[in-house]
């Protein structure tokens, strides 16, 4: 096992990775940008390196990160999620510099990062894929190809950026007009977002469920799966609520997990990854993509399997064979995870940075928190708005939902608006409680935003006490001296 790990990330995932490393006796190195110097991951590390003025650009600067690893004597790098996690060049540069990269080799990242290549590999492996087009030609020729595709497969049609992922670079077209205008918009968006305007088409599924399979693969060809997750509750393709396991009929469950393992093997996958599928209302599933990194929602799988996925990642990266066989994996109970963000749900989920004036968190049986905030923390406006990830476990689905509600009630976050009141609405929604949801859930439940947020009664009285103190008398008591 290596001795020192640099975590090339920030926030909750950096801390989560450090925890597993520290449990294995590995020293941890945090990196940070000047604009992020009060971040909690720095405090949780064994040592820390400022890699630049920021914001964002230095977390994306491969040279600076590798330099930091060398300067601190780190022998491995974990990329977390986002930033450089799915950049094949980063994986390659680490290897070239004699650093272990905790993730798949660069060619796997590159293959899976290209939607077209990934589809080809999966088709060859016999994994069902959503009917799709090749990369569209530029200009009018591309438009003609698109029209032919739509005529063959019908609407809706999804327009996707080849370089997209994580819900970005996707547009839906329901009519021919939307398709033609969407092609141009999708191209220009892809060019701006990914520096590559290649796009292709996929048959759109109507209100499908989003189900994914967590896999672990070692360097010696062994691949196992850790069961399913249901991530259907999304807002604009960003996952909001993630659940393990996905509630699938036994036969489908068996097939989808087996296909995920086959997909990983076909891709020559190494380390932890996720094979994502869409499932239609007939329980027919289609390959969507492979995420070649640790995912935000990995915690729900950890809760129902008892396995520390990051610990396994580190062991695999250190060259150890998988310590688990497929038959060792038991799925037990239910887990739900929510991303509690500093966003104002009532204002189109606008990120709302500010200072955390009060932070009280829930605890107790079956409640797991992966957070990176503390009281007095000023959330920088340059990074994502996630404050803390709440993951609950319950022996039954109902118990998990009840625990989730209780845990949400146990939060007290003052200073910034959060998504907590919105989630409180969800856990009381009948459709959610009865597990009736697909990817249209948020759009078809606009009443979830119909809540009223009030300041804590004690804070309001504290403000009054401050006024009485300031005036030297109570200006509201008709009692002026």
């Amino acid at each position: 096992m290596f001795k020192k790990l640099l975590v090339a990330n920030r926030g909750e995932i950096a801390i989560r990775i450090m925890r597993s490393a520290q449990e294995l006796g590995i020293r941890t190195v945090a990196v940070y940008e000047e604009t992020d110097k009060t971040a909690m991951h720095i405090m949780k590390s064994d040592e820390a390196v400022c890699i630049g003025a920021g914001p964002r650009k230095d977390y994306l600067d491969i040279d600076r990160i590798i330099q930091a690893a060398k300067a601190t004597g780190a022998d491995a790098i974990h990329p977390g999620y986002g930033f450089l996690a799915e950049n094949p060049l980063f994986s390659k540069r680490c290897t070239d510099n004699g650093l272990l990269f905790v993730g798949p080799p660069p060619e796997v990242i590159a293959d899976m990062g290209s939607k077209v290549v990934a589809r080809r590999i999966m088709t060859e492996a016999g994994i069902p894929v959503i009917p799709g087009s090749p990369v569209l030609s530029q200009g009018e020729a591309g438009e003609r190809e698109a029209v032919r595709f739509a005529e063959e497969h019908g609407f809706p049609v999804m327009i996707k950026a080849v370089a997209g992922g994580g819900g970005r670079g996707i547009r839906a077209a329901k009519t021919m007009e939307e398709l033609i205008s969407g092609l141009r918009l999708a191209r220009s968006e892809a060019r701006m977002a990914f520096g590559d305007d290649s796009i292709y088409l996929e048959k759109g599924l109507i209100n499908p469920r989003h189900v994914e399979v967590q896999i672990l693969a070692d360097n010696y060809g062994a691949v196992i799966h850790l069961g399913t997750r249901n991530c259907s509750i999304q807002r604009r393709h960003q996952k909001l609520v993630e659940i393990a396991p996905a509630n699938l009929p036994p036969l489908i469950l068996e097939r989808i997990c087996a296909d995920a393992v086959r997909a990983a093997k076909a891709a020559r996958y190494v380390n932890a990854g996720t094979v994502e599928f869409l499932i239609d209302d007939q329980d027919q599933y289609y390959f969507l993509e492979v995420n070649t990194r640790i995912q935000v929602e990995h915690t729900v799988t950890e809760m129902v399997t008892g396995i520390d996925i990051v610990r396994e990642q580190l062991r695999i990266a250190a060259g150890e064979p998988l310590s688990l066989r497929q038959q060792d994996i038991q799925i037990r109970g239910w887990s739900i995870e929510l991303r509690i963000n500093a966003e104002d749900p009532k204002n189109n989920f606008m990120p709302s940075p500010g200072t955390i004036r009060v932070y009280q968190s829930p605890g107790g049986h079956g409640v797991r928190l992966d957070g990176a905030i503390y009281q007095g923390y000023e959330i920088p406006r340059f990074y994502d708005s996630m404050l803390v990830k709440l993951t609950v476990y319950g022996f039954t689905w109902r118990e998990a939902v009840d625990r989730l509600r209780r845990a949400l009630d146990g939060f007290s976050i003052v200073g910034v608006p959060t998504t907590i009141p919105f989630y409180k609405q969800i856990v009381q929604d009948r459709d959610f409680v009865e597990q009736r949801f697909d990817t249209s859930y948020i759009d078809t439940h606009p009443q979830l935003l119909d809540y009223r947020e009030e300041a804590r009664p004690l804070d309001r009285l504290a403000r009054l006490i401050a006024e009485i103190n300031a005036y030297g008398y109570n200006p509201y008591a008709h009692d002026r001296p």
Partner: protein
Amino acid sequence: MADRERILPSMSPSEIIAFVRETPGYFLTNNERDVSQSDFKCRILPWTTLRVAPYRDDTGYFAFEITGGASIHVDLMAKQINPFEKLRLVRQHMPNTLIQTVCRGRNLFGYRPYPDNLLQMTVALFARYVDVWRVYDFLNHVPNMEVVGRAVQKAGKLLMPCICFSTGVGHTDEYYVDKVREILETFGEEIILCIKNHSALGSPRRIASLVQALRTHYPELVLAYHGHNTDGNDLSRMVAAAESGVKILEVADHGFGGMFSQAPALSLIQTLHDYGFQAPGLKVQPIVDASDLLRRERRHYERFETPFRGFDPTVKRHRLTGGAASMAFEQAEKLGLLERIHEVFSELMNVNKELGNIWSVTPGSQILWTTAVSNVLHGRYEQPSDDLKNLLLGRYGPFPFYDPQEWIYEKVLEHKRRDGKKWYQILADEAGIQKLPDVDLETKRRELQERIKQPVDDESLCLYLQFPKDAVEYFRFEETFGKTWLLPPQVWYRRGGFPDGETILIPDEQGRTHQIDVVSTSRKEGAVETSLLVDFHFQTYSVPVGSGSQSG
């Protein structure tokens, strides 16, 4: 009735009346509303009321008066509590005791008449919480009590019409016996009749005579006595009343009142015990416990007690009702009249006599007092108030015994009259009670909704219609700061700020204790910054104080 130990709110008015009538002995009503109004300028907070509620509920009082009179207005204006919410809390904390109010007939809880539909709406809304309705008119003009009284009966609550009591010309037993007949003819026999001795007048013998006269004429009628201890002699009057057949007597806790308000419960119980009277179902220990607690609370209200302590036997002459008497000295001081206070009181005696020897109780007491002060300051009837003009015009009702002399009519009614009308013409054209048009409730509801930007329920509308300015200010306050009934008096009435290190314990609505620690106070450019540990979380509040524009 024998199976019952005490009166409960679940009983109907007829059951309550029968129980009182047929049970030997007497009953007591604890009148915190009047104690607060007469001795503490209505400033007793719900915090205190709720703290002693379990003891008072356990005592076995006939009723607990906690609303009505001036309290509704002051609840909104100076305590920032919704009077309806206060009643909900009292009911919750005192589930076994009847809640009582005092209502000024057409003038409701204010100083001027209101339209019939507002009277009916107000009674219907308050009757959700209030079991016993003490209703009076300051001229004993029964028609003024009619709309409210009927609304109370319609709501299925106990109606307790009052005869306001006074002394001197006209105030004979015969007059009051006739007045009670009029009340019985108006409301029927399912009532309790209250003798309202608001100004602590009459000797024990006088009270006994009145009670005996009423008992002789209406032997089935249950009588209650509401008195004040302004002269220090109400215990004697209550003993005489009880001996003569009054069943319900109004008292205060000895830890709290007993000056311009009611006499102490325990003193009365001890005295009547020696006279051979028992109070069925009444427990003494909770009365002692309540007062032990109230004695400790009382110091937080000291600023609102009249600085002129001691009984006032001269009330026999000036006749000011409890609350007005305690305020009179202070008002005189503020007007720079303290050295001429004897002149004012002497003038008040003249005014009483000149203005028909009516009852000095709200709103009459305010009219008489204001007139006396004005007469001393500006010359006799030289600057009459509009309310005095209305009194002479009979807008509140007729003078019961005799009319004022013509020269007073002339001075008052012709004052600032631009049309040159003579007083007798004015009387002929404009006198008498005016029927007010009903208020358009839905228009007013929309108006309030627009002002406070939130949905308006009937209770809010009712408060707004009676106290438009103070109700709106209260709604805004509540929106900002929440529930003030959670705050102790030493916080709400704090003077001079909070020293560093002070700890304030506040229970929440569910009774869980929270802690606010004062860390520091600093001044910065026209603002005061207060740092607090709110449930151990550090918070700093900046309050601009430069302009000093806060309303007081």
